[in-house]
């Protein structure tokens, strides 16, 4: 059963611009003017070309970066007013790369996700233990709990990262290319799990994906980032057209229909 999509926005970006300072003193503009609103319980996929600023956008949403112009709001308040710790209690990120330090077990790394909620100086609370167990279970990683984290396969690593994010008990989950390096089966399994978690825990999810068809199959709403702006934002049917793909990605695709009537973008022969 899907949770009702609320109309109140959980996170919003209004005319956000951001440029990275360069070593030579110049600036590299990445986002020009981004408008994006995430309502509670929404499941949104973010697609775009390489270098279009998808990861930067995620960083702005967590407050890791501060916008040069425009405003980022979380739960109605400007993000700049939030304490780091309070943001960490509400927003979790599944990063593209994560250094897994040597010597930790999976369960111990997942427990690091409890850090924003940590109450006691040295010991972990009952609540922490339950949250870790629940996170592992939801991520399908219970069987990995005692394994050394640096011995995991690609798919297992992803489950670990999901568990770490879930341990934070966030309201907003941001995923940065979670399907990179995963085979098809694992891609599907992961996204299905994310959908299920959204339903079970009432999460709001923004996932950066590179596969347009996967995005269309996964999310009811797709936003397309190109040259620092959101150039399209709506249902996959509205957004993912041959026209847009040619404009943004410079690639020709044909629209096809699947057996059960869903639209599908097919590459012309390379």
């Amino acid at each position: 059963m899907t949770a009702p999509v609320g109309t109140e926005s959980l996170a919003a970006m209004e005319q956000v611009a951001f440029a990275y300072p360069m070593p030579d003193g110049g600036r590299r503009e990445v986002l020009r003017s981004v408008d994006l609103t995430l309502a509670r319980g929404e499941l949104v996929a973010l697609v775009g070309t390489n270098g279009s600023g998808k990861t930067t956008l995620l960083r702005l949403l967590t407050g890791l970066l501060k916008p040069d112009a425009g405003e980022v709001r979380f739960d109605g308040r400007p993000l700049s007013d939030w304490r780091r710790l309070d943001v960490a209690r509400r927003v979790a990120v599944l990063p593209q790369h994560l250094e897994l330090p040597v010597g930790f077990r999976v369960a111990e790394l997942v427990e690091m996700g409890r850090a924003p909620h940590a109450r006691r100086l040295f010991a972990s609370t009952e609540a922490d233990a339950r949250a870790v167990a629940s996170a592992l279970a939801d991520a399908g990683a219970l069987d990995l709990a005692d394994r050394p984290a640096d011995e995991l396969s690609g798919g297992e690593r992803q489950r670990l990262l999901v568990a770490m994010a879930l341990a934070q008990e966030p309201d907003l989950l941001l995923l940065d290319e979670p399907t990179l390096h995963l085979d098809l089966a694992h891609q599907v399994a992961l996204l299905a799990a994310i959908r299920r978690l959204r339903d079970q825990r009432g999460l709001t999810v923004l996932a950066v994906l590179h596969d347009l068809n996967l995005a269309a199959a996964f999310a009811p709403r797709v936003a397309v980032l190109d040259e620092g702006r959101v150039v399209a934002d709506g249902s996959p049917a509205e957004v993912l057209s041959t026209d847009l793909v040619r404009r943004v990605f410079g690639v020709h695709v044909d629209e096809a229909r699947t057996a059960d009537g869903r639209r599908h973008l097919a590459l012309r022969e390379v």
Partner: protein
Amino acid sequence: MRAAATAPTTAQSIRIGPSLTRATVVLGGGAILLLTAMVVAVAIGSVGVGIGDTVAVLGHRLLGLPLARTEVPGAESIIFDVRLPRVLTAMLVGGGLAVAGTVFQALLRNPMADPYIIGTAAGASLGAIAGLMAPLLLPALAIGVGSSWLGLGLVQLLAFTGGLGTVLLVYAVSRANGRVPVVTLLLTGYAVSSVLAAGVALLMFFSGQHLGAIFGWLMGSLAGAKWIHLAFAAPLLIISATLLVVRWRGLNLLLLGDGPAANLGIDVEREKLVLTILATLATSTVVAISGTIGFVGLVVPHVLRLSIGPDHRLLLPASVLYGATLLALADLGARLAGGIPVGILTALIGAPFFVWLLRRSRMVRPVVTP
């Protein structure tokens, strides 16, 4: 998803963090080992003072028990004035270096980091040598090695401020856009250290009769241990070590990288600054009273990590206990080997042991991205 045959599938069976038993064994064992090492180190020295005399002297001085004549002449002075301050200093220095080394290795995400790496050794050495040569450099001031302010000599004061000041300089120089990237910190530390080392070499060239004292200081030695030094160093070391031990969460998270740590609620730049200052405070204090003793701060964290794991919750307090034990015993060895500088002994024994341990366990792996 494959389910392993022995997988824990219930919430109750999931272990997070070290159990109370494990913590007790590791830390309790460390404390007992430390106490034993302390007693052994005080009881043994180049002059044989028997257990009977040792206990009698300690009982007399610490508990006020009456003391009859000791079997060995001068035993009371040997035990209480010569050995005890030296052993206590060794413990404080060993614990301080080990905990600082642990912190820097995590902070800089570099397994080769030691407490001196971002400039403490170079700055403290320059200060100490200037102090040792004060009669040569500034004869008008008429300050010699014997003069002191509240019992602390010029050497100690200059070494402490030199170490701390250098790190603050390195930190300030490494800052860009409000951030201090770890790699920049490392490289700036190396550069500043090199410049200061050149200054040290220059001073040594003109040092004349002070060269022996300078060399002894650079090797690091506990021979000059004094109660008055302990009075200043002990509170500084205990406070900074305690403040570091409670910051274990931040250190664990910093291992994940600056970004993930920030996403988990750590104010990364502030945490790095606080950790750097505390660890440098401990290191500078240690160097001021014992010179630059090498190897302890590098090896103890690694050996412990290979034995009890990288979780700083246990690693930090363990490094204090086992580092203190190591140096107390190493200093005992140095005393028995004819008064050689203790840094020589720690290197001679520690290095091969470390290699052996590495070959037995998994190697420290480079960062693997998915």
